[in-house]
């Protein structure tokens, strides 16, 4: 499993990187942490002519927590999120979900930009982006643009990113103090891609849920919010019965894949179970 031959460049600015991606035969690929790209190269599932390593570009590893939200650079690593002093309070769902990503060594190099560009339906970071109404910041040869996460992840390994575009960061809206949340995922082994995962959050106003978010990973072709489940939750008091009902709504709405690890029926049921448990955790019932 030796890698196919490619050229290698280390631009020092975003502009230079984008120019490198745009030049050539169109098969150039950005290299961030490499924890997803390198296995694809090892299996020769992709054969880029050029790898554009982003490690020389300053500022892409920044974490900025502000009034309007949290901006994370594309090269922020999983271990940076884990170790950051302010993120657990500023974005608790992010920190909780990222806690399930891969293993110790991968977490030392894997980046959120790389994960979102790859867009595995079971990956946590795309799920965070969707569950938290994140906005991705992209820069291409034609300039910069922002794309809402819900419009970015289009299908398995498919995104709105153009070949000459880079993800430079993501902004997650500010997380109000006291917001209730829960996240549950189930994988064959710890650190594996989830067979299903569900994130739930809402604000509690007068004992009722407001701004209900229910998002699914794994049991789907791309991370997405479940409108039917959110409608049930919105304006309701969170009880065990409601949690079960929301779980059923999630199970009814997802279109899970079937593969060697699980049947579609299993993933459907599992998504419902995890939604019920995530909501119970959010509501302090568990």
């Amino acid at each position: 499993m030796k890698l196919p031959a490619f050229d290698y460049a280390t631009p020092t600015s975003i502009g230079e990187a984008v120019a490198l991606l745009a030049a050539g035969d169109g098969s150039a690929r950005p290299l961030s942490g490499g924890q997803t790209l390198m296995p694809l190269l090892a299996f020769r599932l992709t054969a880029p002519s050029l790898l554009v390593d982003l490690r020389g570009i300053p500022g892409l590893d920044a974490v900025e927590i502000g009034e309007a939200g949290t901006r994370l650079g594309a090269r922020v690593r999983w271990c940076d999120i884990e170790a950051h002093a302010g993120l657990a309070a500023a974005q608790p769902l992010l920190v909780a979900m990222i806690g399930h990503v891969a293993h110790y060594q991968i977490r030392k190099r894997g980046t959120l930009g790389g994960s979102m560009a790859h867009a595995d339906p079971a990956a946590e970071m795309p799920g965070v982006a969707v569950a938290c109404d994140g906005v991705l910041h992209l820069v291409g040869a034609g300039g910069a643009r922002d794309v809402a996460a819900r419009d970015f992840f289009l299908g398995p390994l498919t995104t709105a990113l153009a070949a000459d575009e880079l993800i430079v960061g993501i902004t997650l809206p500010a997380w109000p103090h006291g917001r209730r949340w829960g996240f549950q995922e189930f994988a064959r082994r710890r650190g594996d891609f989830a067979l299903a995962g569900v994130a739930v959050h809402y604000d509690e106003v007068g004992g009722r849920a407001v701004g209900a978010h229910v998002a699914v990973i794994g049991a789907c072709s791309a991370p997405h919010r479940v409108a039917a489940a959110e409608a049930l939750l919105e304006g309701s008091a969170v009880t065990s019965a409601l949690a079960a009902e929301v779980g059923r709504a999630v199970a009814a709405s997802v279109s899970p894949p079937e593969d060697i690890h699980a049947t579609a029926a299993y993933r459907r049921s599992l998504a419902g179970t995890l939604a019920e448990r995530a909501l119970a955790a959010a509501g302090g019932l568990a």
Partner: protein
Amino acid sequence: MRDVAFEVNGKACRVAVEPRTTLADCLRHDLGLTGTHVACAHGVCGACTVLVDGEAVRSCLTLAVQMEGAAVTTIEGLSSEDGLSPLQAAFRKHGAVQCGFCTPGIITTMHALLTTEPHADEARVREVLSGNICRCTGYMAMVAAVLEARAAYQGAPA
């Protein structure tokens, strides 16, 4: 071919590699440091774990050309001719080695963990160890060895 200059086990080195050469292959075949083992070459098993600037990384998922200016530590750099480190000695005492192929990657990983988290509990040790696959031991003896070796890292400068 690209020239890459970096530090390996405290010594400066310069090596000419193809961009596609992984750090694992560079260490093993260009620099002769064969203590780093490759068991899957696709980033799952952890056998090739080395320290880059003190952090445990999978050297099969890292390109040698990315190491420009970095400090790399391999199992050879964590070992002495005179005997075993406290972590290595604990592995031997607890019978945590069988075929020994995964062992260097596990020693490097656990060294990195205990250096930064000398009070890691069993759950944390298992969580981190889950990034390394051992086919022989079933992990029980390894966990016991790591927990015992913590004492040697406690109070030491990180």
